[in-house]
Protein backbone atom coordinates (compact mmCIF):
# COMPACT_ATOMS: atom_id res chain seq x y z
CA UNK A 1 0.00 0.00 0.00
CA UNK A 2 2.74 2.44 0.92
CA UNK A 3 4.55 1.60 -2.35
CA UNK A 4 1.40 2.56 -4.29
CA UNK A 5 1.15 5.74 -2.24
CA UNK A 6 4.78 6.60 -2.94
CA UNK A 7 4.34 5.81 -6.66
CA UNK A 8 1.23 8.05 -6.85
CA UNK A 9 3.05 10.86 -5.02
CA UNK A 10 6.06 10.58 -7.31
CA UNK A 11 3.88 10.46 -10.43
CA UNK A 12 1.90 13.55 -9.49
CA UNK A 13 5.18 15.19 -8.45
CA UNK A 14 6.37 14.78 -12.04
CA UNK A 15 3.79 17.35 -13.12
CA UNK A 16 2.89 19.31 -10.01
CA UNK A 17 5.43 21.18 -7.94
CA UNK A 18 3.88 24.61 -7.50
CA UNK A 19 0.14 23.92 -7.18
CA UNK A 20 -0.90 27.37 -8.45
CA UNK A 21 1.34 27.06 -11.53
CA UNK A 22 -0.16 23.65 -12.35
CA UNK A 23 -3.73 24.82 -11.77
CA UNK A 24 -3.37 28.02 -13.83
CA UNK A 25 -1.65 26.07 -16.63
CA UNK A 26 -4.46 23.50 -16.73
CA UNK A 27 -7.12 26.24 -16.71
CA UNK A 28 -5.28 28.07 -19.51
CA UNK A 29 -4.96 25.00 -21.72
CA UNK A 30 -8.56 23.90 -21.13
CA UNK A 31 -9.88 27.46 -21.57
CA UNK A 32 -8.02 27.95 -24.85
CA UNK A 33 -9.02 24.47 -26.06
CA UNK A 34 -12.71 25.09 -25.30
CA UNK A 35 -12.66 28.60 -26.79
CA UNK A 36 -11.16 27.29 -30.05
CA UNK A 37 -13.41 24.24 -30.26
CA UNK A 38 -16.53 26.35 -29.64
CA UNK A 39 -15.47 28.77 -32.38
CA UNK A 40 -15.13 31.72 -29.98
CA UNK A 41 -11.57 32.36 -31.17
CA UNK A 42 -9.47 31.02 -34.03
CA UNK A 43 -6.69 28.45 -33.53
CA UNK A 44 -3.99 31.03 -34.26
CA UNK A 45 -5.33 33.41 -31.62
CA UNK A 46 -5.57 30.38 -29.33
CA UNK A 47 -1.89 29.57 -29.86
CA UNK A 48 -0.90 33.20 -29.19
CA UNK A 49 -2.98 33.18 -25.98
CA UNK A 50 -1.39 29.89 -24.99
CA UNK A 51 2.17 31.22 -25.44
CA UNK A 52 1.43 34.49 -23.64
CA UNK A 53 -0.48 32.69 -20.89
CA UNK A 54 2.35 30.22 -20.22
CA UNK A 55 4.87 33.07 -19.94
CA UNK A 56 2.52 35.02 -17.66
CA UNK A 57 1.93 32.02 -15.39
CA UNK A 58 5.67 31.32 -15.20
CA UNK A 59 6.40 34.98 -14.41
CA UNK A 60 3.75 35.00 -11.66
CA UNK A 61 5.15 31.81 -10.13
CA UNK A 62 8.80 32.90 -9.95
CA UNK A 63 7.84 36.41 -8.78
CA UNK A 64 5.70 34.90 -6.01
CA UNK A 65 8.66 32.78 -4.80
CA UNK A 66 10.98 35.80 -4.91
CA UNK A 67 8.59 38.03 -2.96
CA UNK A 68 7.85 35.32 -0.40
CA UNK A 69 11.56 34.81 0.26
CA UNK A 70 12.12 38.41 1.31
CA UNK A 71 8.78 39.05 3.01
CA UNK A 72 9.24 40.44 6.56
Amino acid at each position, binding site marked *: MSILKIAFKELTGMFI*DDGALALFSLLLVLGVGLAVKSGLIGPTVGAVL*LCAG*CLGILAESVTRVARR*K*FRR
Partner: protein
Amino acid sequence: MTTITSITSTMTASFLGSFVEVVEAFTIILAVGVTQSWRPAFIGTGLALSVLAVLVLVFGPLLGLIPIDILQFGIGTLLILFGMRWLRKAILRAAGFIALHDEEKAFAAESDALARQSTERRADFLAGTAAFKAVLLEGIEVVFIVIATGARPGMLPYAAIGALVACIAVLVIGLAVHKPLSSVPENTLKFIVGLLLTGFGIFWVGEGIGTPWPGGDLSLPVLFGGLAAFSFIAVRWLRQYHNLHAEPVAR
Protein backbone atom coordinates in the same frame (compact mmCIF):
# COMPACT_ATOMS: atom_id res chain seq x y z
CA MET B 1 5.50 15.90 -42.15
CA THR B 2 8.92 14.81 -40.90
CA THR B 3 11.56 17.47 -41.30
CA ILE B 4 15.14 17.88 -40.18
CA THR B 5 13.92 20.54 -37.70
CA SER B 6 11.47 18.21 -35.99
CA ILE B 7 13.91 15.26 -35.99
CA THR B 8 16.66 17.42 -34.50
CA SER B 9 14.40 18.99 -31.85
CA THR B 10 12.85 15.64 -30.95
CA MET B 11 16.18 13.84 -30.60
CA THR B 12 17.80 16.72 -28.72
CA ALA B 13 14.91 17.06 -26.25
CA SER B 14 14.69 13.31 -25.73
CA PHE B 15 18.46 12.92 -25.36
CA LEU B 16 18.94 15.80 -22.91
CA GLY B 17 15.82 15.03 -20.84
CA SER B 18 16.72 11.36 -20.59
CA PHE B 19 20.37 12.16 -19.85
CA VAL B 20 19.42 14.20 -16.78
CA GLU B 21 17.06 11.47 -15.51
CA VAL B 22 19.56 8.65 -16.11
CA VAL B 23 22.32 10.60 -14.31
CA GLU B 24 20.04 10.82 -11.24
CA ALA B 25 19.24 7.08 -11.36
CA PHE B 26 22.93 6.27 -11.90
CA THR B 27 23.86 8.19 -8.73
CA ILE B 28 21.55 5.98 -6.62
CA ILE B 29 22.67 2.73 -8.29
CA LEU B 30 26.29 3.71 -7.69
CA ALA B 31 25.55 4.55 -4.04
CA VAL B 32 23.89 1.14 -3.57
CA GLY B 33 26.74 -0.69 -5.33
CA VAL B 34 29.54 1.07 -3.49
CA THR B 35 27.92 1.21 -0.01
CA GLN B 36 26.14 -2.15 0.10
CA SER B 37 27.10 -4.42 -2.80
CA TRP B 38 26.61 -4.61 -6.55
CA ARG B 39 24.23 -7.61 -6.36
CA PRO B 40 21.19 -5.71 -4.95
CA ALA B 41 22.08 -2.76 -7.20
CA PHE B 42 21.88 -4.93 -10.33
CA ILE B 43 18.84 -6.94 -9.14
CA GLY B 44 16.91 -3.74 -8.29
CA THR B 45 17.90 -2.15 -11.60
CA GLY B 46 16.99 -5.28 -13.59
CA LEU B 47 13.60 -5.62 -11.91
CA ALA B 48 12.78 -1.96 -12.48
CA LEU B 49 13.75 -2.19 -16.17
CA SER B 50 11.53 -5.30 -16.48
CA VAL B 51 8.56 -3.45 -14.93
CA LEU B 52 9.19 -0.53 -17.31
CA ALA B 53 9.32 -2.89 -20.30
CA VAL B 54 5.99 -4.45 -19.24
CA LEU B 55 4.42 -0.99 -18.80
CA VAL B 56 5.60 0.09 -22.27
CA LEU B 57 4.42 -3.17 -23.88
CA VAL B 58 1.00 -2.99 -22.19
CA PHE B 59 0.25 0.73 -22.53
CA GLY B 60 2.32 1.55 -25.66
CA PRO B 61 -0.11 0.02 -28.20
CA LEU B 62 -3.07 1.76 -26.48
CA LEU B 63 -1.62 5.14 -27.49
CA GLY B 64 -2.08 4.17 -31.13
CA LEU B 65 -5.84 3.91 -30.56
CA ILE B 66 -6.17 7.57 -29.52
CA PRO B 67 -6.87 10.09 -32.35
CA ILE B 68 -3.68 12.07 -33.03
CA ASP B 69 -5.17 15.53 -32.27
CA ILE B 70 -6.52 14.37 -28.89
CA LEU B 71 -3.21 12.61 -28.13
CA GLN B 72 -1.21 15.75 -28.99
CA PHE B 73 -3.54 17.95 -26.92
CA GLY B 74 -3.34 15.59 -23.91
CA ILE B 75 0.41 15.03 -24.13
CA GLY B 76 0.97 18.72 -24.83
CA THR B 77 -0.93 19.61 -21.66
CA LEU B 78 1.17 17.18 -19.60
CA LEU B 79 4.33 18.50 -21.28
CA ILE B 80 3.42 22.08 -20.39
CA LEU B 81 2.99 21.02 -16.74
CA PHE B 82 6.19 18.94 -16.80
CA GLY B 83 8.30 21.45 -18.74
CA MET B 84 7.13 24.57 -16.86
CA ARG B 85 7.92 22.81 -13.57
CA TRP B 86 11.50 22.24 -14.76
CA LEU B 87 11.80 25.73 -16.22
CA ARG B 88 10.48 27.39 -13.06
CA LYS B 89 13.00 25.51 -10.92
CA ALA B 90 15.82 26.22 -13.38
CA ILE B 91 15.04 29.97 -13.37
CA LEU B 92 14.89 30.04 -9.56
CA ARG B 93 18.15 28.05 -9.31
CA ALA B 94 19.96 30.28 -11.82
CA ALA B 95 18.78 33.38 -9.92
CA GLY B 96 19.97 31.99 -6.58
CA PHE B 97 16.57 31.47 -4.97
CA ILE B 98 16.92 27.71 -4.60
CA ALA B 99 20.04 25.58 -4.21
CA LEU B 100 21.66 24.02 -7.26
CA HIS B 101 21.21 20.26 -7.64
CA ASP B 102 24.43 18.49 -6.68
CA GLU B 103 25.00 14.82 -7.58
CA GLU B 104 27.86 14.57 -5.03
CA LYS B 105 25.43 15.65 -2.29
CA ALA B 106 22.73 13.25 -3.54
CA PHE B 107 25.30 10.44 -3.59
CA ALA B 108 26.49 11.27 -0.06
CA ALA B 109 22.91 11.41 1.29
CA GLU B 110 21.97 8.07 -0.31
CA SER B 111 25.23 6.42 0.82
CA ASP B 112 24.68 7.71 4.34
CA ALA B 113 21.13 6.33 4.46
CA LEU B 114 22.32 2.96 3.12
CA ALA B 115 25.24 2.81 5.57
CA ARG B 116 22.82 3.33 8.48
CA GLN B 117 20.77 0.37 7.22
CA SER B 118 23.79 -1.85 6.50
CA THR B 119 23.68 -3.56 9.90
CA GLU B 120 20.07 -4.65 9.43
CA ARG B 121 19.37 -8.23 8.37
CA ARG B 122 17.43 -7.06 5.35
CA ALA B 123 20.08 -4.53 4.28
CA ASP B 124 20.43 -6.12 0.83
CA PHE B 125 16.67 -5.95 0.32
CA LEU B 126 16.55 -2.28 1.33
CA ALA B 127 19.49 -1.45 -0.92
CA GLY B 128 17.88 -3.33 -3.83
CA THR B 129 14.61 -1.49 -3.18
CA ALA B 130 16.44 1.86 -3.31
CA ALA B 131 17.93 0.96 -6.72
CA PHE B 132 14.57 -0.40 -7.94
CA LYS B 133 12.70 2.74 -6.89
CA ALA B 134 15.26 5.11 -8.43
CA VAL B 135 15.40 3.30 -11.76
CA LEU B 136 11.62 2.84 -11.95
CA LEU B 137 10.76 6.45 -11.13
CA GLU B 138 13.45 8.03 -13.31
CA GLY B 139 12.63 5.42 -15.98
CA ILE B 140 8.96 6.42 -16.00
CA GLU B 141 10.07 10.02 -16.58
CA VAL B 142 12.30 8.85 -19.47
CA VAL B 143 9.38 6.88 -20.99
CA PHE B 144 7.15 9.95 -20.65
CA ILE B 145 9.79 12.19 -22.27
CA VAL B 146 10.17 9.74 -25.18
CA ILE B 147 6.40 9.43 -25.73
CA ALA B 148 5.85 13.17 -25.32
CA THR B 149 8.64 14.38 -27.59
CA GLY B 150 7.76 11.75 -30.19
CA ALA B 151 4.03 12.47 -30.18
CA ARG B 152 3.79 12.82 -33.92
CA PRO B 153 3.51 10.07 -36.54
CA GLY B 154 6.96 8.70 -37.34
CA MET B 155 8.81 10.62 -34.61
CA LEU B 156 8.71 8.04 -31.79
CA PRO B 157 11.73 6.04 -33.08
CA TYR B 158 13.83 9.23 -33.16
CA ALA B 159 12.80 10.07 -29.59
CA ALA B 160 13.62 6.51 -28.52
CA ILE B 161 17.06 6.72 -30.19
CA GLY B 162 17.75 9.98 -28.32
CA ALA B 163 16.89 8.33 -25.00
CA LEU B 164 18.88 5.18 -25.79
CA VAL B 165 21.97 7.21 -26.70
CA ALA B 166 21.57 9.12 -23.40
CA CYS B 167 21.42 5.84 -21.41
CA ILE B 168 24.50 4.49 -23.19
CA ALA B 169 26.36 7.78 -22.73
CA VAL B 170 25.69 7.88 -18.97
CA LEU B 171 26.63 4.21 -18.62
CA VAL B 172 29.89 4.61 -20.55
CA ILE B 173 30.90 7.82 -18.75
CA GLY B 174 29.83 6.35 -15.39
CA LEU B 175 31.81 3.13 -15.89
CA ALA B 176 34.82 5.17 -16.96
CA VAL B 177 34.87 7.60 -14.03
CA HIS B 178 33.24 5.24 -11.48
CA LYS B 179 31.87 8.09 -9.35
CA PRO B 180 28.81 10.39 -9.35
CA LEU B 181 28.63 12.44 -12.53
CA SER B 182 28.87 15.72 -10.65
CA SER B 183 30.87 17.43 -13.38
CA VAL B 184 27.92 17.10 -15.75
CA PRO B 185 26.37 20.60 -15.98
CA GLU B 186 23.07 19.19 -14.73
CA ASN B 187 21.46 22.52 -13.88
CA THR B 188 22.23 23.97 -17.30
CA LEU B 189 20.90 20.80 -18.91
CA LYS B 190 17.72 21.04 -16.84
CA PHE B 191 17.30 24.64 -17.99
CA ILE B 192 17.59 23.62 -21.64
CA VAL B 193 15.31 20.60 -21.15
CA GLY B 194 12.71 22.80 -19.43
CA LEU B 195 12.78 25.16 -22.44
CA LEU B 196 12.52 22.33 -24.96
CA LEU B 197 9.73 20.45 -23.16
CA THR B 198 7.65 23.59 -22.56
CA GLY B 199 8.14 24.54 -26.21
CA PHE B 200 7.04 21.09 -27.34
CA GLY B 201 4.05 21.26 -24.98
CA ILE B 202 2.83 24.57 -26.45
CA PHE B 203 3.45 23.24 -29.97
CA TRP B 204 1.53 19.98 -29.39
CA VAL B 205 -1.44 21.73 -27.73
CA GLY B 206 -1.44 24.16 -30.68
CA GLU B 207 -1.46 21.22 -33.12
CA GLY B 208 -4.21 19.60 -31.05
CA ILE B 209 -6.47 22.65 -31.44
CA GLY B 210 -5.63 22.92 -35.15
CA THR B 211 -3.20 25.86 -35.15
CA PRO B 212 -1.59 26.34 -38.57
CA TRP B 213 1.87 27.09 -37.13
CA PRO B 214 3.67 29.56 -39.44
CA GLY B 215 6.47 27.64 -41.15
CA GLY B 216 5.23 24.35 -39.68
CA ASP B 217 8.01 22.71 -37.65
CA LEU B 218 10.14 25.85 -37.97
CA SER B 219 7.88 27.35 -35.30
CA LEU B 220 9.52 25.02 -32.77
CA PRO B 221 12.90 26.83 -32.71
CA VAL B 222 11.02 30.13 -32.56
CA LEU B 223 9.08 28.89 -29.52
CA PHE B 224 12.33 27.66 -27.89
CA GLY B 225 13.94 31.03 -28.61
CA GLY B 226 11.02 32.98 -27.16
CA LEU B 227 11.02 30.90 -24.00
CA ALA B 228 14.82 31.23 -23.72
CA ALA B 229 14.62 35.03 -24.07
CA PHE B 230 11.87 35.21 -21.46
CA SER B 231 13.83 32.97 -19.06
CA PHE B 232 17.00 35.02 -19.57
CA ILE B 233 15.16 38.23 -18.71
CA ALA B 234 13.46 36.53 -15.72
CA VAL B 235 16.80 35.29 -14.34
CA ARG B 236 18.40 38.74 -14.71
CA TRP B 237 15.48 40.48 -13.04
CA LEU B 238 15.32 37.92 -10.21
CA ARG B 239 19.08 38.16 -9.62
CA GLN B 240 18.79 41.94 -9.30
CA TYR B 241 15.84 41.50 -6.95
CA HIS B 242 17.76 38.91 -4.94
CA ASN B 243 20.88 41.07 -4.65
CA LEU B 244 18.87 44.16 -3.76
CA HIS B 245 17.04 42.42 -0.93
CA ALA B 246 19.84 40.11 0.24
CA GLU B 247 22.39 42.89 0.90
CA PRO B 248 20.94 44.29 4.14
CA VAL B 249 20.72 40.76 5.55
CA ALA B 250 24.35 40.05 4.76
CA ARG B 251 25.66 43.02 6.76
